[in-house]
């Protein structure tokens, strides 16, 4: 399968709406038609929010009719991962325990999307509570990779990636705790960015690993991605970890080509035995593109990066065991009907409500925090996290950005890795260190392997360097032509046509 650009991007659609060539309501109708035509094969959406989306589209058309200027991206339909709250719409987190939970308030990102008048069309599938790398841990459905529906879209934000890559919507939000946006972006030929920790408010994102979680956007072009991050980023008094620095004009930065860029290649990720040869070739291709722009390259070492997965699976699960203690059948969510006393109300509710992977992570995290094991596991993992952070700091004293794979391989088959949790965890070897360090990472399409499956690479920068990542990503997008990539079969059906 080859990629060729579809005619419209999110920013083009927005411009057409602003100029009156296209009405937001017509675009929304087209979107729901595309969802009805396509999503039966893809299973990206868990549920739709037609009424709310319709109201927002009407608001946009009224603003156009009365000559009001539209905010950035107004009228462009967007999908949200089902762990981000939209008031009055269910947030199931793809878990039985929240099957009927209706969000009582808006996430801060939802408030911002509403202020910018982007119709939120529905909520997308994920690994239960965002725990997984393939989207196969959903309690409800198996999302498929639009480039090959026998393969996974990646996880945990697999539904969001799948609906953008199958041309149902041009934009989506996911969340990235250990690679949950960058991995599916890579598997589905999308652009995705995990911003600096704190750049986007986590208020209204259902917590998994709070020191790692970050709401993160998907798009099919760098500029659409930059525009969406601009809309959702910024300080929020409701999240004490939100960064107070001003949000730069990411869209303008896309058009400022990097000058005298120093790029580091991560030795430990390039030398890895498990790296698929096609991915190595895609890296060489990207190096050539950037050399054409005057960039210089050097190899840098991140000596502790191979310990990142081990550190992550203690830190993240410890935080998860605490965050998921709130699901007890008392205040919201599922309640076990037959429980006779309070202890069994808790244990039976959680037994019935959580899936296998969630239980595994709660158990691992509880063990790591338990008396007698805390120093040996949690304390040690935190120290290693510190070393990984320092590795990046040292690297960024020598280079401006790092270029590395997003994953060691392209999309794998549904069912291929479910039986072996350790193998599944190692999928995230190149994305996890970025969350541990809190730095931004952008995943971009860099070609296709010999089976026609998308290859994604990552650009990593120091804290707050999103603008640099966008400018490099735009330069690569222009050089490679890998813009608005869609499988042929979905080019005609969706909103971008």
């Amino acid at each position, binding site marked *: 399968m080859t990629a060729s650009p579809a005619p419209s991007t999110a920013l083009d659609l927005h411009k057409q709406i602003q100029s009156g060539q296209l009405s937001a309501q017509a675009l929304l109708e087209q979107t729901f038609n595309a969802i009805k035509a396509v999503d039966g094969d893809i299973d990206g959406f868990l549920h739709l929010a037609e009424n709310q989306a319709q109201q927002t589209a009407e608001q946009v058309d009224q603003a156009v009719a009365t000559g009001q200027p539209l905010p950035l991206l107004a009228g462009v339909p967007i999908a949200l991962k089902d762990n981000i709250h939209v008031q009055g719409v269910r947030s199931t987190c793809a878990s039985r325990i929240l099957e009927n939970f*209706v969000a009582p308030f808006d996430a801060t990102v939802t408030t911002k999307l509403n202020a910018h008048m982007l119709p939120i069309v529905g909520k997308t599938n994920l690994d239960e509570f965002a725990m997984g790398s393939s989207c196969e841990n959903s309690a409800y459905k198996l999302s498929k990779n639009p480039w090959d529906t026998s393969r996974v879209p990646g996880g945990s934000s697999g539904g969001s990636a799948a609906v953008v890559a199958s041309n149902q919507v041009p934009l989506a939000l996911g969340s990235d705790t250990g690679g949950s946006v960058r991995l599916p972006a890579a598997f589905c030929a999308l652009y995705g960015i995990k911003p600096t920790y704190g750049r986007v408010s986590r208020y209204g994102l259902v917590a998994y690993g709070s020191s790692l979680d970050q709401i993160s956007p998907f798009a099919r072009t760098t500029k659409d991605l930059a525009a969406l991050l601009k809309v959702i980023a910024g300080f929020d008094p409701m999240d004490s970890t939100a960064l*107070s620095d001003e949000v730069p004009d990411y869209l303008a930065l896309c058009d400022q080509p990097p000058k005298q860029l120093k790029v580091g290649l991560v030795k430990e990720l390039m030398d890895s035995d498990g790296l698929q040869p096609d991915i190595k070739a895609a890296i060489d291709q990207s190096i050539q593109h950037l050399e054409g722009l005057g960039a210089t390259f050097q190899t840098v070492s991140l000596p502790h990066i191979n310990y990142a997965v081990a550190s992550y699976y*203690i830190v993240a699960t410890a935080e998860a065991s605490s965050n998921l203690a709130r699901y007890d059948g008392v205040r919201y969510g*599922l*309640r076990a009907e037959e429980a006779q006393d309070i202890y069994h109300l808790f244990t039976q509710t959680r037994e019935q409500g959580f899936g296998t992977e969630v239980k595994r992570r709660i158990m691992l995290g*509880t*063990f790591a925090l338990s008396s007698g094991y805390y120093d040996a*596991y949690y304390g040690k993992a935190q120290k*290693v996290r510190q070393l990984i952070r320092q590795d990046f700091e040292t690297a960024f004293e020598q280079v401006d950005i790092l270029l590395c794979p997003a994953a060691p391989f392209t999309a794998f088959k549904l069912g291929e890795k479910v039986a072996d949790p*350790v193998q599944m965890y190692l999928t995230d070897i190149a994305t996890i260190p970025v969350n541990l360090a809190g730095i931004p990472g952008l995943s971009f399409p860099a070609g296709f392997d010999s089976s026609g499956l998308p290859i994604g690479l990552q650009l990593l920068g120091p804290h707050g360097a999103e603008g640099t990542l966008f400018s490099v990503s735009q330069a690569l997008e222009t050089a490679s032509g890998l813009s608005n990539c869609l499988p042929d079969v979905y080019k005609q059906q969706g909103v971008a046509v």
Partner: protein
Amino acid sequence: MTHASISQDDVKHVAKLARLELDDAEVQQLATDLSNILGLVETLNELDLEGVSDTPQTSQPALYRADEQRHVYDRAHLMRNAPEVDGQFFRVPKILD
């Protein structure tokens, strides 16, 4: 440290702490899975961590907010998701005899 091996009794103890009621098949599977995962985690023992801080650095100092009431949600609105209420409180099985 010896290679991690998690027994079924260990699993049952942790399940109690985590308030999970596991069936026998789950206990058995989790003993295997957790042992395998901790095998991976124990690669951390190769590192000399003497003198390394275990307090994560943050990008900015902690921010403090004024101690004032804000964002008051309506009680009935918030309790709409509750499995069982009496109009004012959440209902649970009897805690004390």
